[in-house]
């Protein structure tokens, strides 16, 4: 046997703060985004499908410390960030979070991120594989009067699933009052932690920023709860795919733009009118009728064989697109995929074919998400 998918890394991968903790739990570690990351754990609750299903029915702890935790502070911080992000930042209330994008002048996506108004500063959580380029981009374009800080001594733990709130509330009182996309400062065992009600699985849950010296104590306390088991990158990927959430480096790249990617919601209405950010005019052109040649869509496949990233999508003899993510959906019991297809084939229900190893697998354009989100929204 030989794996068809091999990842090459230029630099030897670094260890996460919880590296030993993962290995103690029998994690299989793989290089990802410059770090040795747990892809799945051993034991009766381990394995991608078991970890995936546990997240959907109870709660799982993911280590996402590879992600970049940055902050921008200074009087002009919001104004300066608005030069780089298509979202409103100045109008973001304290304690609220917003999904946004770093764009090139041509409208290409440099990275996707979450911006939070923490009060003292604006926090950015960016993708691990992009963080060094993001920092360079921010340094280059932000005014010297604002301060950019990289919190590289903080771990980031994600607790995701319908029982995440009960489990976290038991050790960090008050967190269950947060609603989706809000955040605040809390205490765990006398230490400050920053808790956000967000995540990338489609489930309710939290992301917890904790100093690396206290990450183990927090992780131990969380998995000591019977409702919580650790889960790796494998489950994180199948969960986010079911949730229809694009992954940078796969579904989003410099060659994709927010409109084709179905992320127009991140282009604030008001700022579309006023402009003043990288990629503004390029995005406006994309927003016009016929402005996008291709669109990101979900695809459901018949049978059991998955189509993977890179597989070509056909309508009859004509190639009309390419998959950017694909796999087997443990929740739905059949393969699902995301990809870009020519705009005329992007309508829901369109029948297409995916070329997998020379075989044509029938597929249909499906609405995203594949599995409904279960976020704890305000007033819900």
């Amino acid at each position: 046997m030989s794996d068809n998918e091999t990842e090459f890394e230029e630099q030897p991968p670094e260890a996460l703060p919880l590296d030993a903790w993962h290995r103690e739990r029998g994690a299989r570690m793989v290089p990802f985004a410059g770090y040795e990351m747990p892809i799945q754990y051993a034991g009766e609750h381990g394995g991608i499908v078991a970890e995936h299903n546990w997240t959907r029915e109870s709660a799982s702890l993911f280590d996402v410390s590879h992600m970049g935790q940055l902050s921008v502070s200074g009087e002009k911080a919001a104004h300066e960030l608005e030069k780089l992000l298509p979202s409103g930042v100045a109008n973001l209330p304290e304690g609220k979070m917003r999904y946004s994008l770093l764009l090139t002048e041509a409208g290409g996506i440099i990275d996707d991120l979450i911006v939070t108004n923490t009060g003292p500063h604006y926090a950015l959580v960016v993708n691990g594989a992009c963080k060094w380029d993001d920092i360079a981009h921010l340094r280059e374009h932000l005014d010297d009067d604002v301060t950019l800080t990289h919190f590289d001594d903080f771990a980031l733990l994600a607790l995701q699933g319908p029982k995440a709130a009960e489990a976290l509330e038991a050790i960090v009182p008050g967190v269950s009052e947060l609603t989706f996309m809000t955040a605040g400062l809390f205490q765990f065992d006398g230490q400050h932690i920053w808790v956000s009600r967000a995540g990338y699985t489609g489930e309710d849950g939290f992301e917890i920023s904790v100093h690396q010296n206290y990450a183990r104590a927090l992780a131990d306390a969380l998995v000591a709860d019977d409702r919580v088991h650790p889960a790796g990158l494998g489950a994180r990927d199948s969960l986010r795919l079911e949730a229809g959430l694009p992954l940078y480096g796969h579904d989003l790249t410099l060659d994709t733009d927010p409109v084709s990617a179905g992320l127009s919601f991140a282009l604030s209405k008001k700022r579309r009118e006023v402009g003043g950010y990288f990629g503004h005019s390029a995005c406006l052109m994309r927003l016009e009728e016929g402005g996008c040649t291709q669109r990101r869509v979900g695809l459901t496949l018949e049978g059991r064989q998955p189509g993977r990233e890179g597989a070509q999508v056909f309508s009859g003899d004509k190639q009309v697109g390419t998959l950017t993510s694909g796999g087997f959906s443990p929740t739905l019991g059949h393969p699902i995929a995301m990809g870009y297809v020519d705009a005329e084939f992007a309508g829901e229900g369109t029948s297409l074919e995916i070329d997998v190893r020379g075989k044509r697998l029938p597929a249909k354009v499906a609405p995203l998400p594949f599995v409904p989100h279960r976020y704890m929204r305000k007033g819900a």
Partner: protein
Amino acid sequence: MARYFTEEHEWIEVDGETATIGITDYAQEQLGDVVFVEVPQTGADLAKGAEAAVVESVKAASDVYAPISGTVLEGNAALEADPELVNTSPDDEGWFFKLTIGDHDELEGLMNAKAYKAFCDSL
């Protein structure tokens, strides 16, 4: 009957002129949850080293190559409905295909169970 192993983590159970081929427990453990298996067509002539089957886990797709040459007698039809047999019973019910052995000499140099265990321990 004798069982042989390859460095590609396949096992070959030889019974007279027939060989049954599957992947080892080590291999299924590495693959993780298997969701799809495509086995070769009955009657197909496989050369040693030719692509014989495809196994897809949640994570990735992998090829299974013919460890010896021969003519396919039967693919394991049970894997179509229950691909997870590869995980739950890799050495037995999760077999992939049976061959009529083309050349017994190709079995020479393959590992026995003891040598294969030592090989896995060295990985």
